[in-house]
């Protein structure tokens, strides 16, 4: 947490430029990976897991480093990162609902 200390004592968020370069490079790599997932026509569960994993990783880096979340106080981290969780309920239920609609359509409509 000494970072936090420096971060708050010195003005604003100051961290060695190198770390941005590093993350930047990482994001490049991960993006390339997720691109390759498509390039090599991976399918099914594997494709999905990879896509989502890479997505989360990238999002994680951007929020944590570029947006300095990593150096913020836990209170702020929680305040910003917890509320989106209630979106998960919406997303899951909407996926199920979409499926349900799809099934009823298959069952009784011309297609």
């Amino acid at each position, binding site marked *: 947490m000494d970072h936090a200390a420096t971060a708050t004592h010195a003005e604003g968020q100051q961290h060695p430029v190198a770390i941005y370069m590093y993350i930047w490079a990482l994001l490049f790599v991960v993006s390339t990976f997720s691109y390759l997932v498509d390039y090599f026509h991976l399918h099914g569960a594997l494709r999905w897991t990879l896509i989502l994993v890479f997505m989360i990783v990238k999002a994680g880096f951007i929020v944590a480093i570029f947006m300095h979340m990593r150096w913020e106080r836990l209170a702020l981290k929680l305040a910003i990162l917890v509320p989106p969780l*209630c979106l998960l309920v919406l997303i899951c239920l909407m996926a199920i609902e979409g499926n349900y609609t799809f099934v009823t359509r298959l069952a009784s409509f011309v297609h």
Partner: protein
Amino acid sequence: MAYVALADRDHALHDPQTFVTKYIWSQDHKVIAIQYAVTAIAIGLVALVLSMIMRLQLGFPHTFSLIAPNDYYQAVTMHGMIMVIYLLTALFLGGFGNYLIPLMCGARDMVFPYMNMLSFWVYLLAVLVLVAGFFLPGGPTGAGWTLYPPQAISNGTPGASWGIICMLLSLAIFIVAFTMGGLNYVTTVLQARCRGMTLMRMPLSVWGIFMATILGLLAFPALFVSAIMMALDATVGTSFFMPAVVSMGKAPVHHGGSPLLFQHLFWFFGHPEVYIVALPAFGIVSDLLSTHARRHIFGYRMMVWAILAIGCLSFVVWAHHMYVSGMNPYFGFFFATTTLIIAVPTALKVYNWVLTLWRGDIHLTVPMLFAIGFIFTFTHGGLTGLFLGNVTVDVPLSATYFVVAHFHMVMGVSPIMVVFGAIYHWYPKMTGRMLNDTLGRLHFWVTFLGVYAVYLPMHYLGILGVPRRYFAYTTADFPESVQSLNASITVAALIVGTAQLFFLVNLVWSLRNGKPSGSNPWRATTLEWQTPDTPPKHGNWGAKLPVVYRWAYDYSVPGASEDFIPQNVPPSASAPAGAHA
């Protein structure tokens, strides 16, 4: 600490010179609050008149027949939407939120006054766009305030061409306005409190408004998105919510959209929305009760946690509005459970309100009367909510007048009670004069008894099976007695409606002739009553920000010389530290 200084950093208050910058382009949260309140009440009165027109049709369908079916549906829609969004949401957050947050937190103003000012003007624009609907060809939309597609945008629904676009546009604008204001309220509460004002010392009014604002910031996006998508469906011809439909025998132009998706998005907004109008009422009524019962609020911590719990839960109960919508029926289990769980924290709040009165020193002032009226009607309305929340019980009652009765009792009556109580309570601070007491009591009694006479019987119409959103019934559907009951409901509603004149007259008359109130007529502890001058000047606190030493509820502290100790009074012999820091 580098950052602690931030909160001490005083606003660069632009000092208003001209009349215009003082009262029109004002950045003073108090002026903005009043602008918000007046606009909201004005448009609220429109909705009130609409409701009276509806009642006349329902009560005396053939004697008056003022309106045709399309007018009726337009009235219902505008009535509902105006009341929920443009009256209550705006009044509680834009009005009371703006006025109370900085004063109760001991801030000089909102953190970003300029944006706060914009918020009002954009809100006004939203109202104007909404009203414009009345004057466009085809009139305002008659799709019901839930605006379900395909109905909302297909012929056969009044205002399906211009009205609905107006409505969607107005909602989008309103959301922009609300976001500008809301960001201000939240940030002010979190970052701009005065010294010693910890979150757990804040008055519950602020807590309620704060939580409601957060709900708004997270729930309005769903409405915003669905408004955009529906507007696209209507104008560009996309098929988000529109499946292939044969409207009026014409071949389908849309394909494969999902109407249920809209309903889910709408209620993902809609349910938090109902708490957006409920939570501020919860908070404010807590302060009214405690002040006028000269007793601390009972179980303050519990009250705060309940507000938080209700806020979180309100995002996972939305589909209790959709039990019979044709959604995946298995959702019923999940949503019935989450919905009934909400009853527990809400119940605790009810208990704590009553327990605040218990062993109090109750002054039956006008605000107190309204607060008690709130407890009575809210308990009633909340309990009927349990019927509807329990999926099986909802099936026969859904879409009947039972629902209408439920949500009027809990939203159309109880928060309105709080609005009135709050205005009687804070009017002295806003104007330096008391509202007339006799008129006030008259207003209370007619409104309270009147609305109960309106909405109690309505439940039973619903149980009998009378559907809502019906322009008229035939005797083939329901016995004559339904008609006579509807007639008596209408009479009661008309009386209540006109009784609001007592209030409006009182508001205007007391401005000049009310008896001077002094700075703290109710002998209340919270900071807004401790301002150096009443009404507070721009900047609220004169030279020095207040410092807070105690929670907001030090009433009747043992050993204190007075039966109340303001939050900014340091502990001393005559003012011992309360039990609760």
